């Protein structure tokens, strides 16, 4: 593809200082929440970002949204470097960049009506007059599968799945070109998840925007994404087509992660060989000279503890950061 990607991250780092001392002034170390992340998202594509809690996937999303200051690296969105943007310049990117959060209870203001919530992005950018906005809100509610008559209701009158639909309607209001979904279904009931996943897919087919889909559940991510990136301790350890990541995972962490996910079929389960990782994740504040996964890796060699493997292409469109891949 010669067209430049919609979003492109190059070696992005987000570090949090560890402050000690009586007035928390002394900086004694830093947590490398995101430690050199690079990926591209093409127009109309869905990139899945998976990893366990604390691996930095949400921090990466916050860095893109300008909610977290980057320590290094470039973030290019629609041809513009958006890393470090502030104030009005930052605000303007939200016309094209929207987000859907995990918790539909916390992400909607309880004192605003659905109409106010859904039209707030329009109001922020002074798009349309009041009457047009209400028409747009009704249209949006219909798009996400809610009754437009609910427009004067408050969030507490809705169930979790319905609230998530309101959050989706709000994200759609300005016709963005990229929507970041941070664990959009993990707070929902199992029987509701499929509804929301289908809705997200239908909307993409209709409006052709891109998703950055963040989740810890690899089966959901694989279903919705074109490509999947696996994160571990602030780094991407593997990135590939969603087909390939399951069929031929290259990084030992991806293999362990895949094998750990239970499959709802006892016959398949009986035949599977599960890779049980020993040990815990090292703290993100520790400086690791070699591969971050070496402490838990079942196949590590001496080199892994001394040298950090770079992310390299092992097949067309499939990269992994492992010496043995």
């Amino acid at each position, binding site marked *: 593809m010669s067209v430049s990607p919609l979003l492109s991250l190059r070696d992005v780092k987000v570090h949090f200082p560890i402050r000690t001392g009586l007035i928390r002034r002394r900086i004694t170390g830093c947590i490398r929440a995101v430690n050199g992340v690079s990926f591209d998202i093409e127009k109309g594509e869905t990139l899945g970002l998976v990893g366990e809690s604390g691996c930095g996937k949400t921090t990466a999303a916050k860095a893109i949204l300008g909610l977290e200051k980057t320590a290094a690296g470039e973030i290019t969105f629609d041809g513009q470097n958006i890393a470090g943007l502030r104030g009005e310049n930052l605000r303007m990117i939200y016309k094209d960049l929207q987000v859907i959060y995990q918790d539909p209870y916390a992400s909607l203001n309880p004192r605003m009506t659905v109409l106010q919530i859904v039209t707030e992005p329009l109001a922020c950018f002074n798009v349309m007059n009041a009457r047009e906005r209400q028409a747009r809100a009704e249209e949006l509610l219909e798009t996400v599968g809610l009754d437009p008559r609910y427009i004067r209701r408050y969030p507490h009158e809705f169930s979790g799945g319905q609230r998530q639909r309101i959050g989706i309607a709000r994200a759609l209001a300005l016709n963005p070109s990229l929507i970041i979904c941070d664990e959009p279904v993990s707070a929902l009931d*199992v*029987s*509701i998840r*499929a509804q929301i996943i289908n809705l997200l897919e239908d909307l993409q087919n209709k409006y052709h925007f891109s998703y950055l889909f963040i989740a*810890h559940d690899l*089966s959901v991510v*694989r279903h919705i994404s074109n490509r999947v990136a696996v994160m571990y301790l602030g780094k991407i350890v593997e990135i590939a087509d969603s087909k390939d990541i399951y069929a031929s995972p290259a990084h030992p962490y991806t293999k362990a992660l895949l*094998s750990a996910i239970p499959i709802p*079929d*006892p016959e398949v389960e009986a035949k599977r060989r599960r890779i049980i990782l020993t040990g815990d994740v090292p703290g993100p504040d520790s400086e690791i000279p070699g591969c971050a996964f070496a402490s838990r890796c079942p196949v590590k060699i001496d080199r892994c503890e001394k040298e950090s493997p770079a992310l390299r292409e092992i097949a067309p469109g499939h990269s992994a950061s492992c010496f043995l891949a």
Partner: protein
Amino acid sequence: MAEPVLSVQNLVTRFHTADGVVRAVDGVSFDLMPGGSLGIVGESGCGKSVTHLSFLGLIPQPPGKIEGGKALFKGKDLLAMKPGELRKVRGNDIAVIFQDPMTSLNPVLKISLQMTEGMMIHKGASRAEAEARALELLRAVGIPSPEKRFHDYPHQFSGGMRQRVMIAMALMCEPAALIADEPTTALDVTIQAQILELIQKMRKETGVAVILITHDLGVVASVCEDILVMYAGRVVESAATGPLFARPLHPYTFSLLRSIPRLDAERKERLFSIPGLPPDLIHNPPGCSFNPRCPFAVKRCFSKEPPLTEIGPGRKVACWVDIESKKERAT
């Protein structure tokens, strides 16, 4: 056939709230065999936790009220016991592991104290005896160098390690039954795999019967021998694990299994989705609670609630329709 360790019969628990009566558990029955493993699956609010909290006497009363049924533990009815008697069973004969290991351990007490307390009270063990057993169990559940960690506080352990401590603590008094209520929901998948394997290992080694409560069908598929599927406070289907997954007979189980994206399946265009919302337990529709969301519903489903009926060896289902032939069942 052996006697069940725990036999719950027709348990009914309701909560009397200002908004109305919540039928949280509405006639639940099951047997737990010695050394067996029973999975209870359902969505939030289906009554899967309230079931075990009821027979362990952990429901706040009021607003909760146990309005019927029996829970026979080794032949004695837990529901008829006085609080003092029940206290001797809880943590001794029946132990519970809760979802969140952060909140179920006391943050201001060392784990050595928390682990030994139960055995000293229930079994009259000396501190030295209890500590020896605690160390042995900590080693069994895979805590590295337990002697060093024994006098640590809960916050010094990671989530997975804390859940291991909880499991060791639950096994201190050699319980006959272990109830694990969403034991891995708060954990990462790779840690979840470790904990599930540990529960399996401890079951084989100690012969403790396990009830695993979860919303994740994948988890029960790998761990449990028998499964109970709950919906709106009732058991809608019960079967051995193999047949349940191979041939789900209740429309809810059937739909739920098809709506989960599977890691090993071909990527489909769309997921099968269950329409509508989980039921409101105060305003249950007449007839079967699943009727507003059911693709197979017939006229009778809207007027009469289907009883849980045995339709084959070890298989029970509460549905008026045989979903395989799409015909109504004769009564």
